[in-house]
């Protein structure tokens, strides 16, 4: 399945690169361990070769290589994070939605129109800016398929900007533990084609409080 958002696409690339590197390292460590245990098991005669106390060149080498690989991971993770951060601050003419989280529901107020509960309808292909605040404890707005989450705090607005390219129904979860019904504080983000979205908006303005798909 193609990632539905640019953020998700960046995540997939990074995540699978990390997985490849880390799986490789894990395999090397495991194979080396098993190989060494078999080769140097006491039942096998290893001759009189003396153990090596230390070997500065190896020690420096694996320190430097580890350092370099980690630095690379950091840079790529940071670049992708910066794009996310830049989205949040610089996106032009996004669709504005206010989000209020309270135990245990999500309320959405579209800038000049409908209000909804536990469902957010948005058009595909257009940046959406959420201004989020909590009425009680800390919650976290999490759409797994978008690979995106941000905490929703009381007394302090958080902003999250995203753009979805693929229409569909996406699960919304609360990711920060918020008490009794934390695991039932779920909703959905309904991403529609621009035409469907316009139709939905006009339907909603004639019958303001219903929750239509």
């Amino acid at each position, binding site marked *: 399945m193609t990632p539905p958002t640019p*953020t998700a696409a960046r*995540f997939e690339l*990074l*995540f699978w690169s*990390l997985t490849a590197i*880390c799986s490789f390292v*894990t395999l090397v*460590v*495991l194979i080396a*361990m098993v190989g*060494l*245990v078999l080769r*140097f*098991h*006491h039942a096998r005669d*290893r001759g009189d070769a*003396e*153990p*090596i*106390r*230390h*070997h500065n060149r190896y*020690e420096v080498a*694996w*320190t430097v290589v*580890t350092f370099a690989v*980690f630095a690379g*991971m*950091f840079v790529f*993770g*940071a670049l*992708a*994070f*910066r794009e996310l951060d830049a989205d949040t601050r610089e996106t032009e003419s996004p669709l504005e939605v206010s989000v209020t989280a309270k135990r245990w529901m999500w309320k959405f107020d579209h800038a000049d129109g409908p209000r909804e509960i536990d469902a957010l309808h948005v058009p595909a292909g257009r940046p959406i800016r959420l201004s989020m605040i909590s009425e*009680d*404890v*800390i919650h*976290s707005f*999490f759409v*797994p*398929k978008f690979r*995106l*989450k*941000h*905490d929703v*705090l*009381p*007394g*302090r607005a*958080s902003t999250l900007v995203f753009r979805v390219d693929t229409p569909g129904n996406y*699960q919304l*979860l*609360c*990711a*920060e*533990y918020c*008490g*009794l019904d*934390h*695991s039932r504080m779920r909703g959905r983000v309904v991403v529609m084609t621009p035409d469907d979205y316009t139709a939905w908006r006009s339907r909603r303005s004639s019958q303001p409080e219903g929750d239509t798909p």
Partner: protein
Amino acid sequence: MTATDPPPTLRTASVVKAWLTTTDHKRIALLYLVTILGFFVLASLAIAVVRVELLTPEGDVVSAETYNRLFTLHGIVMVWFFLIPAIPTVLGNYLLPLMLGARELAFPRLNLASWYVFVAGGLVALTAMIRGGLDTGWTFYAPYSTRFSEGHVVLTVIGIFLAGVSSIFTGLNFIVTTHQLRAPGLSWFRLPLFVWANYATSVIFVLATPVLGMTLLLVAIERLLSIGIFDPDRGGDPLLFQHFFWFYSHPAVYIMILPGMGVVSEVITCFSRRVIFGYRYVAYSSLAIAVVGFFVWGHHMFVSGQSALGSLLFSVLSFMVAVPSAIKVFSWLATLYRGRIHLYTPMLYALGVVALFTIGGLTGLFLATLAVDVHLHDTYFVIAHFHYIMVGGMVMAFLGGLHFWWPKITGRMYSERSGKVAAIAIFVGFNLTFFPQFMLGVDGMPRRYHSYPDSYTALNVVSSCGAVLLAVGYLLPLVYLLASLRRPRDAGDNPWAATGLEWRTSSPPPPDNFEVQPTVESPAYDYASMPVRIPDWIPEQAARDPA
């Protein structure tokens, strides 16, 4: 025993009194062992119910309220009443003076006091649990913990505060002992790496634990007196709580793993019959972890709304703290090279730790990578990651150390065959339980979910089944280690032909540890002067043993 012995009942009373008033570090270690095992069993039972609940997507075994209280109990008891004290207060207490060639810790009565304070803290926390517990999670995030939670937050917080005081006592004692009571000739770079690891841990105990104590008191103050510190409705800041909490709780992760790394260094050298590869790198890496570990706390807050620049710095520092861990893994592997490897039970555990710690450490890099953490934060990926470190690393190392030093502590050898079976069951059961949780996290299943979307069912079932095998693996040592106590004390002073000073005295050691003050003439792990094979009587005894 002479004819003047008191009658049996009186003797029982005096034995109990002797144990409860002892200042012998070895006896205090055993008091701690029994205490923390009790907490381990309690916290395990709580999570067993959680794993049963998670067999199905609906919340149908216990109510959401009970579920939340169970995982909170599991977290609080495991972290503060088992993992943090486990290796330092049991193996550290028992072995530190022996490894240093000392008669005692520097402050024997402070050591006993630490146990009493710990037990008091445990009893306060248990009282809170018995009266209904609390549902904040072990992280106590404000303002949930300070205003909304209806559980016994204040009582629990007092219990943890006391456990923290006990940690500080232990840390202080270890630091002074290591500085002051080393045997003649035992210079810093001749110390066993277990001592280095406990020293680094003690530094964290002393520097970080006060911050935890202060933070928890602030939670109690806000809750009781409605003074706004963390609650924005009262002029506080909830992120302030997270900064305080993780300033302690991330270093606390290293409190939990560093002593385990020390155990691994002792065991791998002994069962490879050779010196550790790169002693100084391994020793300094413990200190590096302890120091850099203080500056990475913000990686718990990448999606909390902290500044983007702050997140960048915390990310880069988190990668840096992983470098010394990698050095340790490479050094352990290099220690196997040209060794004469013996696969006894402690060695199986040590190799298991190296494998699982590698996975736990590398998955930590995913969480340190900013854009990846945005998705993985607060999902089961995090749960799997830290259980690979805490259980795969720390609990396995604790068990490995317990098996390694069991003949020293009790004078008896356990059934080697049962030991191997248990080690393998734990390794397999552990991976079955926690590997699926990585996949659940990547799929986006959040932690602390009583009910969950249907798509996560299959992996949860696998995880719960693995937990059964893991539980069986944990029960086995309880059985065969206790059974070994009925045997004669025939393990000898040094059954593994190991090099540390602790092996140069009788098993168990006399009250003053050594008949003659030992001196040290050679570096640690001088296996060149020891037999290249571990004497054969152990397998013979295991063959005789019906278990």
